[in-house]
């Protein structure tokens, strides 16, 4: 097993005159046996990073180090890595068995060794029954299992996953997700996993690396990322439904600190932020900033049993989406929309006036200009 270190990776697809820079100085340390998830919107450079690690893409500058060895000049096949692709990349003219055995055959493993490895991997993944079928007769989930199996038989130092679940249907995706996590626990291997799906990122990763526009924005454990996003981008990217942003200022009103929405409308939000927050935000008083509040931190006044300090506002229910245990409420304060996530104990009527509260302890504030968390 191995650690992977990326040092100041730069990748320019264009040339000096017409640059098309995909990676702008990536520094990342992936520990031995860690499950690292690279997440970000499409075009953020996460796949390029993965392909650079695999050696499928050359670098403009920087170093890729696996287990202390610089890998820049090593061919993909000699890096001792395995990669699982989004479209499974199974060889269509070979049977499942041949697909799994291919890499071993290329490495001139003895035949019985190949057989025992393939069979044990197949057993672990529960694909023994279709070892002799051709890939096109399999379902998406089955194909991805084969692709996983193909990676496992190699017992590589590092597993690379390039959005392996995005072609699967919802159900298969959930089951494969746990499958991969279990696999990681069992193999105790270093895995690097690229996805654009924040749910996968949150549920699977030991750590998450959020990327945007060729740079790393934040690397941390999932809950830290969720609770303490370093900027608006991360806050918005992680969490579903998305975090609500409200632009405004903190002003002093009658000796107390109030958040005032930057909106001329009569219905603009305005609420007391309490003492604790007031102290914390002292330095930013009067500046334009952005308030972030996650949907689950907005409560229906009637159900609010919270002891912690809250704000209190009115809004009109535009749509309610019952999701089962909880309901998404699309509210409109009159000045702007808000999404709340509440328990499904109550039924909500369209256009119903609702009094809601926000958990002041869980409010996020960002600099309006830089987007950085305050």
């Amino acid at each position, binding site marked *: 097993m191995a650690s992977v270190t990326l040092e100041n990776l730069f990748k320019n697809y264009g040339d000096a005159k017409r640059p098309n820079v995909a990676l702008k100085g990536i520094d990342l340390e992936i520990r031995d046996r860690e499950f690292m998830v690279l997440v970000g919107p499409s075009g953020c450079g996460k796949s390029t990073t993965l392909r*650079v690690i695999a*050696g*499928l*893409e*050359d*670098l*403009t*500058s*920087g*170093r*890729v180090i696996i287990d202390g060895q610089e890998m*820049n*000049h*090593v*061919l*993909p096949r000699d890096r001792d890595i395995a990669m699982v692709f989004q479209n499974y990349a199974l060889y269509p003219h070979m049977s499942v068995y041949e697909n799994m055995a291919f890499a071993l055959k290329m490495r001139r493993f003895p035949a019985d060794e190949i057989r025992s490895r393939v069979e044990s991997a197949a057993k672990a993944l529960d694909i023994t029954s279709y070892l002799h079928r051709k890939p096109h007769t399999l379902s998406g989930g089955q194909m991805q299992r084969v692709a996983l199996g193909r990676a496992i038989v190699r017992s590589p130092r590092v597993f690379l996953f390039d959005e392996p679940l995005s072609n699967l249907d919802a159900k298969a995706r959930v089951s494969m997700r746990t499958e991969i996590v279990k696999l990681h626990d069992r193999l105790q291997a270093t895995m690097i996993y690229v996805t654009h799906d924040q749910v996968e990122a949150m549920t699977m990763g030991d750590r998450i690396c959020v990327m945007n526009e060729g740079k790393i924005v934040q690397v941390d454990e999932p809950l830290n990322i969720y609770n303490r996003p370093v900027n608006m981008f991360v806050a918005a990217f992680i969490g579903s439904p998305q975090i609500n942003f409200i632009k405004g200022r903190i002003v002093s009103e009658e000796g107390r600190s109030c958040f005032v929405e930057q909106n001329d409308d009569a219905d603009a939000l305005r609420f007391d932020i309490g003492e604790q927050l007031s102290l914390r935000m002292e330095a930013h008083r009067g500046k334009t900033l952005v308030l972030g509040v996650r949907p689950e931190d907005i409560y229906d006044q009637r159900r609010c049993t919270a002891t912690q300090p809250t704000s209190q506002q009115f809004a009109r229910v535009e749509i309610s989406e019952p999701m089962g245990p909880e309901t998404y409420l699309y509210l409109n304060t009159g000045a702007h929309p808000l999404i709340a996530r509440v328990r499904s104990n109550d039924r909500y009527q369209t256009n119903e006036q609702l009094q809601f509260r926000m958990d002041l302890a869980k409010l996020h504030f960002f600099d309006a200009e830089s987007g950085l968390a305050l």
Partner: protein
Amino acid sequence: MNRHRKAVAPWVPYLFVAPFLITFALFTVYPLFQSIVLTTQQTIGPGFERYVGADNFRNILSDPKFWIAVKNTLLFASASVAIQMPLALGLALLMNQPWLRGRSFYRLAVFSPALVGSVFVGIMSAIVFQARTGMLNRSLHALFNFNPDFPWLSTYLMPAMIIATLWMWTGFNMIYFLAALQNVEKELVDSASIDGAGTWQRFLHVTLPAIRPVAGYVTLISLIASLQVFELPYLMLSRLNSGPENRGLTVVMYLYQTGFNVGDLGYASAIGWILALLLIFLSILYRRMSRDERT
């Protein structure tokens, strides 16, 4: 600078193109350049050459025979493509009916002439189109009391050539259309019929736009091929004879005649380059149009 090594050794791509590139450069690109040099010369074969500057082009433009060839070629190309495309599409539509039995037989039957090659079609046409004794006139006379002396090979040479081409290539193009039709999403057609579109409207608004890229490709390829038509009239008219009033003379045939019979490779190359420029222009036009369509 710390250059990262590529996933493949830098010589690998060259290894793959090399066999093609070397022969291509030697046997296509080099002669191509040679032909550019030739356009400024008048020759008697490769042995005798004389520099004439732009005279070849000047002479071609005032050569009535060249213009007859251009007229014939344009007529042949436009007529055969204009008839062939709808015909091929029509056949493909008939063959695309889901309930049709014996599809593979019909497909093979209609496609089979493409197997024979224009050499044989040329020789055969020379026999089939003959007045009185030819199969066509004999059949038409028996069926419709059509003029048994109908002069396919003189006055109506161009229609005869077009018929021969249609016979040969319609089935071939039909294959493209058939494949395109089978790729049209059924949901689209279904949704159109739910929207109340009749057969004709469905065809016009759903099927036709869906197969448009293929239709464009097939049309371009057919147009280019028919603008280069040579073997068919060459063998149909058995060589040098380009028919009375040069009715069977095409641009490439004129090129061949001047180059290989007269031996003026320079004049021939100049003709060839005029045609080549036209073809290049056509394909650029096509690429523009298909690009505009996509955006």
